[in-house]
C-alpha cells in the first residue's frame, strides 16, 4: 500500500539522511522486480482463463487427483501391486518407468519390463547430444502407476501421472520425442517427485543446491500440491531447488554434495522455514538427497564410475546446522577430478541406473556393484536407485 503521504515520508528520510537513498532505491527496485514477475504470471493466468485453458487444467487436475486416489486405494487395500508385478515372470506388464528430464521441462520415459530389470547391464543410448542449452539431464525411476509433481525454480509445481508421458523407443533416445512440461517465462524444471504415496508420508523436505532446507508437514505439503506452489526453497538469488523428499519424521535425512561431503540429521529436526543446514564450499553444490529408514548400506557413485559402499552406521548425525558434514572421499581424490554424481541408501535387491555424458544409459543390480566396485563406465553425469521400498 503505497500512498502519496508515504512517498513524501521516504523523500523526507532521504533529505534528512542522504545515506538512506541507496537502500530505499534498492528496496523499491527489488519490490518492483518481484511485482513485475508476479504481474506477468497474473497476465498469463488471465489469458489462460479467457482461453478456457484454466478449466481444462482444473479438469485434468481433478482427473489426476482421482487417479492418485485410486492408486492409493489399491496400494493400501490390495497390497503391493508393483511389487507383485515386478516379482512375476518376464511376461508381466511393464510397471516401472525410467525418466530422463532436463531444466527445459523435456521428459523422456522409457518403460522397463521385467527383462530389463533382470538382465544386468541393459543399456539404452541417446542418438544425439544429451546436454541441451547447457542443461545436464537427470534421471528418475518410478512406478508407472505413479503421479508426478514437477517442481520449477519459481516454486510453481505441476502434477501429471507417469502414464501421461508417452513412452519413448528404447533403441535411440532423442529429446525430439520428449514430452514437454513447459516452463513459464525463464523458469527451469528443477526436480520431479513421485507423490502417489504423499498422504502416507509425514514430511516433505525441500532442499536447494546450496544446502538450504525446509521441511513441510503432511497437511501443509498437501495444500502446496493442491495450490500447485511449493515455494522456491531458496534464500539466495542464484540458488534453486534440487530435490524434494517424502519421508517419516524419524527417518534420517542425508544430503550429499558434489565434492563429496554428506550431512545427516533426523528429518524431524530440520527447520520449518528455509535455513542453511549444510555449509558447503563456494564451488560445491548438493547433488542428491535421500532418507534412511531400513536400508543397511549406503552407495556413493562417482563421475568416473566408482561405486563406493558403506554400512549405514557410517553416517554421523549433525547436532547443529551449518556444519561441514562428513567426507565421503579424500581431498586428494577430489583434487584429482573425482566427484559424486549419485548416492542412496540401498540393499542388495535394489537397482540403479546411470547416464554418461555421451548418452549411454545403463541399468545395474546393486549386488553386482557391491561385488565389482565399479560401473564399468566413465563420465557418469547422474545415477539413481530404484529400491524395494520404492516398489512398496
Amino acid at each position: 500500500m503505497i500512498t502519496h503521504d508515504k512517498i513524501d515520508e521516504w523523500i523526507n528520510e532521504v533529505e534528512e539522511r542522504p545515506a538512506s537513498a541507496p537502500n530505499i532505491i534498492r528496496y523499491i527496485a527489488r519490490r518492483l522486480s518481484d511485482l513485475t514477475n508476479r504481474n506477468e504470471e497474473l497476465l498469463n493466468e488471465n489469458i489462460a482463463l479467457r482461453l478456457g485453458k484454466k478449466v481444462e487444467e482444473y479438469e485434468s487436475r481433478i482427473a489426476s487427483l482421482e487417479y492418485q486416489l485410486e492408486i492409493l486405494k489399491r496400494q493400501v487395500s490390495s497390497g503391493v501391486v508393483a511389487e507383485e508385478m515386478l516379482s512375476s515372470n518376464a511376461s508381466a506388464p511393464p510397471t516401472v518407468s525410467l525418466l530422463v528430464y532436463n531444466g527445459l521441462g523435456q521428459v523422456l520415459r522409457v518403460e522397463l519390463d521385467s527383462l530389463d530389470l533382470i538382465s544386468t547391464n541393459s543399456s539404452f543410448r541417446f542418438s544425439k547430444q544429451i546436454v541441451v542449452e547447457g542443461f545436464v539431464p537427470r534421471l528418475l525411476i518410478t512406478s508407472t502407476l505413479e503421479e508426478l509433481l514437477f517442481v520449477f525454480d519459481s516454486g510453481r509445481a505441476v502434477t501429471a501421472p507417469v502414464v501421461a508421458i508417452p513412452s519413448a523407443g528404447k533403441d535411440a533416445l532423442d529429446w525430439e520425442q520428449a514430452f514437454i512440461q513447459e516452463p513459464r517465462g525463464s523458469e527451469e524444471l528443477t526436480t520431479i517427485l513421485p507423490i502417489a504415496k504423499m498422504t502416507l508420508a509425514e514430511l516433505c523436505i525441500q532442499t536447494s543446491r546450496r544446502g538450504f532446507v525446509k521441511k513441510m508437514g503432511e497437511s501443509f505439503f498437501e495444500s502446496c500440491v493442491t495450490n500447485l506452489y511449493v515455494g522456491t526453497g531458496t534464500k539466495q538469488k542464484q540458488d534453486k531447488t534440487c530435490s524434494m523428499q517424502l519421508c517419516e519424521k524419524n527417518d534420517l535425512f542425508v544430503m550429499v554434495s558434489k565434492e563429496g561431503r554428506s550431512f545427516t540429521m533426523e528429518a524431524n529436526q530440520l527447520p520449518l522455514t528455509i535455513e542453511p543446514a549444510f555449509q558447503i564450499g563456494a564451488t560445491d553444490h548438493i547433488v542428491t538427497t535421500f532418507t534412511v529408514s531400513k536400508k543397511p548400506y549406503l552407495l556413493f557413485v562417482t563421475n568416473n564410475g566408482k561405486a563406493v559402499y558403506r554400512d549405514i552406521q557410517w553416517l554421523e548425525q549433525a547436532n547443529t546446522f551449518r556444519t561441514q558434514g562428513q567426507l565421503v572421499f579424500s581431498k586428494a581424490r577430489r583434487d584429482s577430478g573425482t566427484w559424486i554424481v549419485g548416492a542412496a541408501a540401498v540393499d542388495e535387491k535394489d537397482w540403479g541406473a546411470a547416464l554418461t555424458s555421451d548418452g549411454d544409459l545403463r541399468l545395474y543390480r546393486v549386488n553386482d556393484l557391491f561385488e565389482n566396485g565399479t560401473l564399468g563406465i566413465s563420465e557418469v553425469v547422474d545415477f539413481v536407485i530404484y529400491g524395494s521400498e520404492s516398489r512398496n
Partner: protein
Amino acid sequence: MGLKVGIDFGTSNSGVAVFDGHEVHLLPVDRKSALPEVVKSILYITRDFKHYIGQEAVELYYRHNVGRLRRFEKKWVGELEFRGADMFYVRDVYTYVDVLKPGRLLQLIKSALRAGNYPGTQIFDRYYTLTDLISVYLRSLKERAETLLQEPISEVTLGRPVKFSEDAQRDRQAEDVLRQVANQAGFQRVSFELEPVAAALFYELTLEQPQNVLIFDFGGGTLDITIMRLGDQRHRKVYANNGIGIAGSDFDRAIIEKRLMPHFGKGRADLDPDLLELVNAVSDWVALPDLSTPPAKYNLERAIREGLAPARLKTLETLIFNDLAFSFYNGVESAKIALSDQGATVIGLQTNQLDIWELYTRYQFERDIHEHREKIREVLLQTVSDSGLEAEQIDAVVKTGGSSSIPAFTEMLGEIFGAEKVKSSDTFSSVTAGLAIRARSS
C-alpha cells in the same frame, strides 16, 4: 549453603550471572541463542505440560504450529444467569477449543506484573496463575544455571524496575509477587535491586575516579533512569530514580497500529463490528492466537465472499489461522532494530496467500513514536531536576537495554547532556552483571 546469583528477569530477555569478587561471569544459559548469555523471556507449555524457555521454546513453537491442522470442539464453560423484573433464566455458555493445539506460547510475562490485572490463564486442563507462569520460567533458569555451575543456587538478587506501577500499593504487590515466585522456584533467599542501579554497579567497575552518572536503562517493558554518584564504594549515593512504562513493546505496537493495520483491512472493514474486533486485535499479539475460532473464520470468509476488501481480509485470515502472528511480530521487532543502524528497512511477510511489504524509514519511525519520545524527554528532565544536579554536573550518561540503541534517544541524550558524555554499556547484560555484583555483597 549454595551459590548467590543475579538474575535479570526482563520483559523481552533475561540473564543469569555470578560474581567471584574480581570478575562477573555471565552464564550461557541459552546455548541455542545467538547470544547464549541472553535468554528470551518466552515460555512454551506443551499439551503434556512440559515447559520450555528461550530459543528452544521459539523453535518448538514453530515446529509444532506452523501449517498444523486444527479441529475445534464446542465446549461448555459455564452458565450465565439473567434476572429481569418478572423473569429469571439461565443460559449455557460455550466456547470453541482447538483440540489439536500442541502448546501455548507466552511472551511479555513480566508486563503482566506491571499491569496488575492479569490473574492467570487456562492452559489446556490446568489453570496457571501469574505466579505459576513466572515461577516455571525462573525455575528453568535456575536449573540451567545450576547445571552450568555444577553447584546448587540458594540465593538470588532479582532486578526490578524503578516503578512496576505509579500506584505505590500495586508497586509493592508486584514486588511481593516476584518474591513469592522466586521462593516458589526454589530460591531460599531473595533480594531485589533496581535494574538501573544494577547497571550502574557494573559500570562502576570501569571507573577510576568518582563520577555523577545517569543510567538510562531502556528495555522491552520499561524505561528506568537513575542518577548516582559512583566510583567510591563507601560514598555511593543515589540522587534520583524514576521510571516510565514505555519501551520496546510500545514502539512495536505503534509501528503496527500506524503502518501495518491497513494491510489487514483497517479503514475498509470498520463498519462491521465483528471484523473490526479482529482487525484491531492485530496489534495485540497475546490476543491474536486466541481468535482462531470457527466464528471468526466464518465472519472473515463471509466478508471475503461479499467482496469487502477480500485481499486484505484474506491476509488477516492467513495471519490468524496459519499461526503467523509470532513471525509477524518478530518481523516488526527486527525492522525496528534494523533502523538503529540504517535509514530504511522493509517489514515483510510473504506466503502464497499473504504478501505484506512495507518500506519503513527512520523518519517514519521517529514520527510514529514522537508522543512516546516527548513523554520520555519529560521524565528524563524531571529526574535530573529531582536529583538536584544540573545537566552539566552529570559526568557520564550510560545507556543499556535493547531500546537504548534507538538513535532518536541517543540524540536526545546528546542534546541534553552533550554527545561526548553518552556511553553504551553491554546492551543486554549490564543489568544482569550488576545484579551478580549486588548478590555477592548482599
